[in-house]
């Protein structure tokens, strides 16, 4: 069977009408279809949040885990079955806040995972507190005097940590998003897309219009030019660049492990008697 984008769609979402999450879901479905990835060949791992509900809304394998912990099961899944295409999809709070430690160390680890962050610059599901990417000055029920911490820049961070694929998209630019997703999924190693996503309910600053006015596509001559990528990644304000800022593979986590050569581990047969010789060293 050939799966068209619509064939991946599942169930009724719990998202607010008008939310940027819909377009992201649509783009991913289209990307999966374009890449001819069948539902059983794909695994989406997510954490907790509005974005993180996505495994319920796409017909693929899903691991909807704990808040902040989406990357870790994804790595485990790659160990068990490297034939699966593993995508991590979650919110900005989930990925960069609660999950910050896994973010930084998995970039170093470089598993073959595409990481799509629905970056609405706010905690949506818990009703509007600041996330690590919130704009300074944004007032919330907790940040009553407005956000004071400077926003975390996920792309610069990823670059500094040696990420091989670093991109920014906007949910309002669906085609570009889809293409970039395809590239990220195909990229061998950890690939990050920070996807700007309007949250119509809680983020009254970074609205669709706000983004639309600022985004542009810079010319990227050499996607292996780290310094150029770093500069692009630091642009924010009146102009916000979109695109694949950096793309340059390095050895993956999977390639460093002897055990992951050949067939996926989950398919290799086992019998305790075959390993009985291990005790000989203790004789």
């Amino acid at each position, binding site marked *: *069977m050939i799966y068209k984008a619509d064939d991946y769609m599942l*169930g009724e979402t*719990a998202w607010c009408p008008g939310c940027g999450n819909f377009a992201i879901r649509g783009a991913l479905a289209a990307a999966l279809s374009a890449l001819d990835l*069948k*539902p*059983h*060949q794909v*695994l989406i*791992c997510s954490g*907790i949040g509005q974005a993180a*509900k996505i*495994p*319920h809304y796409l*017909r*693929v*394998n*899903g*691991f*909807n*885990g*704990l808040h902040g*912990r989406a*990357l*870790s*099961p*994804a*790595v*485990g*899944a790659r*160990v*068990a*079955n490297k*034939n*699966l295409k593993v995508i991590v999809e979650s919110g900005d709070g989930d990925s960069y806040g609660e999950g910050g*430690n*896994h973010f*930084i*160390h*998995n970039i170093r680890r470089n598993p073959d995972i595409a990481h799509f962050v629905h970056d609405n610059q706010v905690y949506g599901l818990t009703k509007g507190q600041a996330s690590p990417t919130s704009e300074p000055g944004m007032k919330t029920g907790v940040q009553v005097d407005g956000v004071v911490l400077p926003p975390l820049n996920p792309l610069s961070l990823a670059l500094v940590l040696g990420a091989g694929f670093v991109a920014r998209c906007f949910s309002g630019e669906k085609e570009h998003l889809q293409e970039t997703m395809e590239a990220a999924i195909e990229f061998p190693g950890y690939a990050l897309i920070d996807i700007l996503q309007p949250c119509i309910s809680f983020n009254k600053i970074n609205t669709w219009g706000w983004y639309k006015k600022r985004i542009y596509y810079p010319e990227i001559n050499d996607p292996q030019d780290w310094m150029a990528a770093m500069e692009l990644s630091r642009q924010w304000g009146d102009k916000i660049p979109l695109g694949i800022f950096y793309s340059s593979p390095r050895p993956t986590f999977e390639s460093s*492990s*002897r*055990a*992951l050569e050949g067939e996926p*581990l*989950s398919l*290799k047969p*086992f*019998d*305790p*008697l075959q*390993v*009985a010789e*291990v*005790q000989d060293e*203790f*004789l």
Partner: protein
Amino acid sequence: MEVNILVGGAAGQGMETIMNLLGKSLVREGCGLIYTKDYMSRVRGGHNFSRLRIASGKPWAIVESIDIMVALNEETYYHHRDNLAPSGRVIFDPRSFSLPEDENRGVPVELQKLAEEAGGKVMANTVAVGALLVLMGLQTSTVEDLLHDTFAGKEGVAEKNIVALKAGFDAAAQFCSACFDLPPRNEDGNKLFIDGNQVLGMAALASGCRFLSAYPMTPSTGVMNYLAGKSKDYPLVVEQAEDEIAAINMALGASYTGIRALTCTSGGGFSLMVEGVSLAGMTEIPLVIIVAMRPGPATGLPTRTEQADLEFVIHSGHGEFPRAVLSATSHEDAFYRLNKAFELADRYQTPVFFLSDQNFADTHRSVEPFDFDRLSYNRFIAEENGYEKPYKRYRNTESGISPRALPGQFEGEVVLVDSDEHDENGNIIEDASTRRLMVEKRMRKLASLAEEMDEPDFYGDPHPELLLIGWGSTYGVLREAVDALITLGTKTGMLHFSDLWPLPQKRLKNLLAEVERSYCLENNAGGQLAALIRRETGLSIKGSIIKYDGRPFLAREIVEEVKNDL
């Protein structure tokens, strides 16, 4: 008949080298032995020591009295001389310190100098081994073989060590040769010399575990080291996680996707894992977690022993879900029991805990080779024609156990696991009736899980008046205490729990009804097994023998407490 050896010195002086050489060669010589470690949380300096006991039959625990002491520094001598038997001996380096004038048990051996003469200071420990051998009337040949094995491929190293060994042998021979009689030895010497962490690591490997994700933490790191070593030759991935939260979540991802996964840690690290435990419960993903206990709270005493996390583990993680808690008792049992943990996890799709502690983890014993034939490997994974279509990860069943398929296993089917409450498909829900259905489905597993639990092991007088109840690593010392009490004329039995949760109750209830006195013996301050028994059965164990100073029990202490209580 027995020989008790203590080797002491500062961290970094290489006690382990001595003990491993000595222990393994003694086992090859057919001795039954046990060797324990008492060490500080530091890398150099301080005072560390190891005890090795050789006894006829099977020595189950160490004792305090010392026949041969190897004092690598002066402190060791003063620390332990009160326990040195009148007929005991002290091997020491006279160039490093001297014994008091009135001490006539000294065996001066110039450890450093002889080592240097053999080719290097590092071999001082080999010199000490040579001295130990001669005191026990042994020859050097077994150790020589061992040195050849150990340094195979390293040109000349074995040879130099053999020179050192013989130098120590000869030097000590001048003072006493065969001053100590070894107990009768078994004919073949075909025993394993192995510590608790190695037993567990090997059991995991032999149970088909293919992924260990963990973060180093004493006293669990030995499991990680063992398996990391094996990852060179077996299809096994060992990953050092960035923290314990990642460790358990990686393991869950791997297990979900289809391989047996393990994580291991100690109290503080386990505390960080409990949200993941709750996730395992909700998503019904099999997982084995080794918790190697050490004294808490917080960082506590990192290199010491305690049994204070039993109730924490049983209740760990928010919300309610079935789990099993097994424990490490003897080396002989632990190998098969960890295998059982993997089987239970897969069969019941739930987290299974294996409680170890420093006392078990770091103790070497001589044991019969394991019977790999007794190990099971059943994955309980759905088969192509063995599940109802369409596939539903959480299909409601009578047993509460749903058919488990792996992501990617069946074309056209997807497997969705969810941390939220969900329906049979794994999709998030909020309604009351699906919630009830799912709580009941999960909880139903508990009933059959309870039937899998082994009744506690009984040892001792078949009609005891006095019952000692214990769990986990106190197995050996309790056995010795039982034997001693029986010898002293008290009809004593012991009931020792390996499987702790769901608590097996039959044998306990029967026995408690018969005995006059009972004691719960635990390496903690709270009396946690006693509390658990009360919680589960309403029965109170009157006597309590507890120890919470970070040190394992001695049989003598148990016997005394029981006697004093008469």
